[in-house]
């Protein structure tokens, strides 16, 4: 039997164009008299877009550095000035790039200010404090209390009051008032984009799946960096159509898909292509990922934008208890007909990784789906032992029992 590679998803090349245009615009911001703010993955980007500030994402940029195999080189720069190898490897790459100007795009444009929301981890709080000192620019901060049970009215109120504070602070930095009508529009566009992205991911419920998580990790860039811009929703609408077409034609992301897997935690950026090929050979398709799903849970509505973003950003799944994360995994296992779960135990992302053992246990108890933990890192190749990881993955897949008839 001869394995043929499936045709590429055409939208992937469109992502590259969009990202190039975006970074070009960001790099020319000062020349065009526009302001740049660095913000984190959980940052309230709608506020920036509505104020005509260009958002720049060190995390996305760090992932690019990781995928380009520059992670170790840049990390070592940060380690050289005293940052422990135990700190987040995105952070180390970011600082390494800020100091040297090195990266696949020759570094990020200097920020005029920073916007950070700690709804993803405590790490970003410290990271942005470091950036504020490094660049000597203002830090606009939003503290979103962790949600162990349900988000309390008190906690949402606290976040909303800080949004008001943040707006005031940004208005004085930018020298313009925020237009609430414009914010409403941006929030609506952002909501539309996240819904379209959710539908894109949902197409992977098809058996066989027209897309896998490795495609998703590339196709997610616009929802992370450009949500709130009109072209993003359009982009995902067209991607959705393309995937529909693939389903109709019976094009599988993994030809001869036999196993359906779920990936927890960030990708291993520096091995993304190798791993993708390896899983393809094993006839295993990663049909869902908690990481990709992180950008679909926003319910944004334009009628009361502050209320909408306050609620949405107060409780993304990564700001919720491991019990809630286990429930989210259970829902994914069920909706995507998942046979087994791969937990990337990510050395430099502790909040995402601590609790995976217990989540795995809960999940197996609830759904019967087995899981394994593999030790790696999103960007630091030195924390990755390829032979051991691949052996574990292969042994795990051999033990899986596909729950449905094999589609050939």
């Amino acid at each position, binding site marked *: 039997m001869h394995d043929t590679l499936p045709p590429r998803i055409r939208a992937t090349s469109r992502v590259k164009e969009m990202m190039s245009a975006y970074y070009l615009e960001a790099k020319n911001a000062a020349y065009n008299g526009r302001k740049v703010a660095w913000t984190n993955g959980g940052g309230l980007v709608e506020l920036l877009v509505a104020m005509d500030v260009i958002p720049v994402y060190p995390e996305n940029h760090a992932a690019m550095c990781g995928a380009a195999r520059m992670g170790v080189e840049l990390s070592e720069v940060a380690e050289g*000035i*005293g*940052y*422990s190898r*135990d*700190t*987040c490897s995105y*952070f180390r790459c970011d600082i390494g790039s800020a100091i040297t100007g090195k990266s696949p795009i020759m570094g990020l444009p200097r920020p005029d200010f920073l916007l950070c929301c*700690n709804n993803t*981890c*405590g*790490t970003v*709080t*410290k*990271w942005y*404090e*470091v950036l504020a*000192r490094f660049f000597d620019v203002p830090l606009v*901060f939003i*503290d979103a*209390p*962790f*949600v*162990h049970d349900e988000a*309390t009215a*008190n*906690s949402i*109120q*606290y976040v909303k*009051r*800080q949004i008001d*504070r943040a707006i005031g602070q940004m208005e004085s930095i930018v020298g313009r008032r925020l237009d609430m009508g414009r914010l409403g529009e941006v929030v609506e566009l952002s909501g539309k984009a996240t819904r379209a992205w959710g539908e894109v991911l949902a197409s992977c419920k098809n058996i066989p799946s027209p897309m896998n998580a490795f495609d998703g990790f590339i196709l997610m860039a616009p929802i992370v960096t450009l949500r709130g811009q009109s072209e993003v929703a359009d982009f995902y609408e067209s991607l959705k159509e393309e995937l529909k077409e693939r389903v109709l034609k019976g094009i599988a992301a993994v030809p001869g898909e036999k196993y359906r897997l779920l990936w927890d935690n960030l990708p291993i950026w520096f091995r993304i292509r190798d791993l993708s090929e390896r899983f393809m050979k094993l006839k295993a398709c990663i049909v869902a990922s908690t990481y990709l799903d992180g950008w679909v849970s926003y319910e944004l509505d334009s009628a009361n934008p502050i209320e909408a973003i306050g609620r949405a950003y107060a409780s993304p799944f990564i700001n919720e*208890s*491991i*019990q809630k994360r286990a429930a989210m995994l259970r829902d994914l296992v069920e909706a995507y007909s998942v046979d087994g779960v791969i937990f990337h*135990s990510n*050395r430099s992302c*502790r*909040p995402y*990784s*601590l*609790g*995976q*053992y*217990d989540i795995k246990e*809960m999940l197996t108890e609830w759904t019967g789906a087995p899981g394994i933990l593999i*030790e790696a890192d999103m960007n630091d190749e030195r924390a990755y032992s390829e032979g051991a990881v691949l052996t574990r993955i292969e042994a795990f897949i051999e033990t899986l029992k596909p729950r449905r008839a094999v589609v050939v």
Partner: protein
Amino acid sequence: MSESVLEQFSRIAAKPYDYAREWKKRTGGRVFGYFCTYFPEELLHAAGLLPMRILGYKENVSLADSHAQPFICSLVRTSLDAALKDKFDFLDGVVFPHSCDSIQNLADIWRHNFPRQFSEVVVLPVWVDIPEAEDYLTEEISRFRQKFEKHLGASISDADIAKSVGIYNENRRALTELYSLRRENPGSITGKAVLDVVRASMSMRKEEHTALLGKLLGELRVAPKTNGATVRVVLYGNACDHPDLMNLFDEMDAVIVDDDLCTGSRYFLHTEAVNGDPIRKIAQRYMKRVPCPSKHTTSFDRRRYLVDMVKESKADGVVMLILKFCDPHAFDYPDLAKRLTESNIPHLLLETEMQPSSLEQIRTRLQAFVEMLKEKKNV
């Protein structure tokens, strides 16, 4: 021969969990474990409980390996391990403040593994110097109070809470005096003894601790002045629970003059008067205390704070004791170290773990550092 005051503190600091068992037997009261000094333990005290700080366990990890990866700090790992090994059989409940990502996830792991034990998280704000956060925290502590009262089946009156805050403040003032006596006459008490006193205060009923500490302060107030020729060191870092490490300073003839440690002055500095709503007063105190690096502030500059501490205590250098895998400290460290260097203050970083480990490497590095300070001082 009866035990001296310092021997009592040392015994309790070395085996706080034995003290908890003994206290329980003696009083018939309940013991709650708490993680991190940001927990508003005044409320537990007001209900007559013994709040006991869980500060890891001095044993190598075995059972916790199947719950927490090796790259998680040893405070989290050894505490969970001890609980799984049933070493905390004396605990009637466990409460967590929100302090960092790892403690936050530990709280969830804990309630999953010990579903029958009362456990609750007070989700403290991370940003501690804005009025919005004070309102939020006041409300959050009230939420905990209600849940806690429901669990107890009894209400805790505002008057009782105010009384406990008063008792805590008295203890904080006594500890503050201990530190100021030490700054003036650091040869009169060892660095280990001071940390024992603070560690014990995290484990004892506060009234009992204050009474014992009163005796010690009485002795120290009249202690003869020792000569000021020895090397003076400030300690900085997080949870230090290593008497052996502290003994090294004595061995090397170096004195500790002050500290910014979570098992030191950060625990007790700052008191808040008790007029008005006691819950708000508690919230205000936790907002105004010297912040842990896991907190975000707009106005507090840790670099300046540490440099000022060194200058005010006339220290010759800083030893930084940082628990491995502690993110908040790891992120602050380089800029802090840079500022110390720029201020011509020698400093030494020692990475620590909660479980016992060989002191030899630490001894060698510390020895070299202290020798360097001595030379610098004599030139």
